[in-house]
């Protein structure tokens, strides 16, 4: 499957550099790749300038662009309008609307599905920040419903019970952008080739244990580092090994990062956890059960937001870590039964 291509790239300034494949991350890319993703159409002229060559409202650049606006921020799981307002007041850059936070899904078991649209809409009315919602892996109708009610981002999430045993949703067909989980580079690039405009490392949701989030971020970083120093032949071999698209892998190698925004998720429970993930190189953090399963949710939420901005300032981190009350109790991932791990869902 061809990788997603941002439409109508405009970096006309660098027409003298070598042609290259498009990058959704134009302004962040390496100088040599920057703005070279012009499609082979005639450059726009002053009087006959064209609009985007396809639907201007669903281009990949617009989808990936919202994720870029979320960078450096915290996206919080909320289950009602009251929590959503609390998250917004705390400085969350977006909220994830869902019926049960992962810790409860884990505890209660059963099949976890898309939330009631009425509850998502109530949250959308309650706050002005972007609202995301989760659909089951491969459940394209849940995705259609979420798009129809106008959520800003769809999370095709392993936290819910998968609906398709073999495939993920073809996300390029949707106007609403998607975020998907990954444990490693191959998984991330498979999701991007399906149309995901944002990636999050999976971690282990609902545990409050950051170890799996760290593991997944380390894995992605290490694989990108390996790709960056690989020859073209080795890259092809690596693409087979990772079961991912060669061109996307090559782009990662060149950018030395994923070609879309990458947040950390799954087990972040404290300001220090958030700063740890930021120092490892993620672009922002998702906090699920960690906030509303703790003693003083408002205070903890604010503290995690401050820690994500000032992730490299230990003095600020110390200040915001003081007196947060009870953290969520949590589950130790190391002693967990493999079968209980949500991260295994998705392919």
């Amino acid at each position, binding site marked *: 499957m061809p990788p997603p291509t941002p*439409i*109508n*790239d*405009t*970096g006309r*300034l660098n*027409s003298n550099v070598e042609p290259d494949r498009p990058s959704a991350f*134009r*302004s962040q890319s*390496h*100088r040599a790749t920057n*703005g070279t993703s012009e499609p082979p159409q005639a450059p*726009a002229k*002053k009087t*006959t*300038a*064209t*609009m*985007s*060559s396809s639907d*201007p*409202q*669903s281009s990949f*650049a*617009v989808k990936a*662009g*919202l994720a*870029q*606006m*979320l*960078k*450096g*921020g915290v996206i919080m799981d909320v289950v009602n309008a009251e929590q959503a307002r609390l998250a*917004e*007041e705390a*400085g969350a*850059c977006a909220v994830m609307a869902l019926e049960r936070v992962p810790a409860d899904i884990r505890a209660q078991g059963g099949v976890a599905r898309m939330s009631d649209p009425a509850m998502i809409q109530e949250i959308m009315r*309650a706050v*002005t*920040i*972007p609202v995301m919602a989760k659909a089951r892996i491969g459940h394209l109708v849940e995705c259609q419903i979420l*798009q129809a009610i106008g959520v*800003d*981002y769809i999370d095709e999430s392993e936290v819910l019970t998968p609906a398709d045993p073999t495939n993920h949703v073809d996300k390029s067909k949707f*106007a*609403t952008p998607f975020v998907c989980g990954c444990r490693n580079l191959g998984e991330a690039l498979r999701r991007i080739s399906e149309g995901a405009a944002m990636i999050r490392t999976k971690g282990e949701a609902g545990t409050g244990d950051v170890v799996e989030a760290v593991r997944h971020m380390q894995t992605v970083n*290490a694989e*990108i*580092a390996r790709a*960056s120093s690989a020859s073209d032949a080795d890259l092809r071999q690596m693409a087979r090994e990772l079961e991912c698209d060669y061109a996307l892998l090559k782009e990662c190698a060149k*950018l*030395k*990062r994923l070609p879309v925004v990458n947040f950390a998720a799954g087990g972040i429970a404290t300001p220090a956890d958030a700063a740890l993930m*930021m120092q490892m*190189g993620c672009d922002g953090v998702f906090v699920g059960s960690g906030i509303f399963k703790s003693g003083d949710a408002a205070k903890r939420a604010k503290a995690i*937001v*401050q820690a994500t*901005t000032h*992730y490299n*300032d230990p003095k600020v981190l110390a200040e915001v870590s003081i007196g947060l009350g009870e953290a969520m109790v949590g589950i130790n991932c190391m002693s967990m039964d493999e079968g209980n791990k949500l991260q295994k869902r998705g392919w």
Partner: protein
Amino acid sequence: MTGSPTSTITIGVLALQGAFAEHITLLRQAADDLHRFQIVERDDWRSQSAHADGHADADGDAADANADSGDRRASGSHPIKINSSCASSSTKNGDVTLPLDSDFDSDFDFDLIEVRTPASLARCDGLIIPGGESTSISLIASRTGLLEPLREFVKVQRRPTWGTCAGLILLAESANKSKASGQELIGGLDVRVQRNYFGRQVESFEADLLLPALLGEEGDVFHTVFIRAPVVEAVLTPDSFVGDGDGEGEGEVPLAAPTTDDAVVVAPAKQATKAPVEILGRLPGRAKTIRDQTTNAADLGEDGDIVAVKQGNVFGTAFHPELTGDGRIHAWWLREVVKAVRERQMGP
């Protein structure tokens, strides 16, 4: 305070939340595309930006690729020195044809830094407030003790400041459709913006705009990206400050936000400016619905929504030049900053 009469110009990008790394990359590119600068990186930048994902290139461009991931490993601010090494007027990459003028006669350096603290803001000669979530940026700024220093920077010291999208909202004197409990603004532009004017993310779009005020009459179209974007809904005259735009309000700037259904918020007053609000870019109303390839925004011939404004030292765009890879507006703005610094140094 910077104010040092040296030839170093410090440009800050507010790095509390949002697409700040993109701005730094494009600022660097803008300077580079003018072909009058050499990137000279400080040693600490290089050593701090090396990290696990294998960044070890020795060439100056390496930092560009790593602007995002590299930045975060360094503490505090991360200066990149860009020296102007020659006074020639040659440009490369044909499309960049900004004329040189006397502002550029002498050598100067650009120091590009991320701003997270009042101390780093105080070093800046110019500031960009990036796209992001305006509520997040405002709350984090307030808790970091940056809101008042920012108002001082923009509205008292009158340093050049540019806001994109969320940044435009924060630089407006008034904004509506804010969150339930309101939102703190920095202010500086006597305009009222409407947040999320076009709607939610599925209403986000791209459009090619002519921006002759910024890029010259002969300038090529600028490809713009609007993401949950605001527009400038009204230019505020001194007696329309109550935020309803009906011109019937008192001449005084209210200190508190009027509570209306539209959740209008206003920025606290500082020193007023006599500079007029200049409208530098408009988006024709139907531009975002154009699906064919033969029409452009200008052909529609409407006045359209205001998407770029300037008032004295403050500049705002509703769209995201930082997402396009096109550094022309950044180049234009850098030149504005140079002029402002020169004027300040000539001073009264």
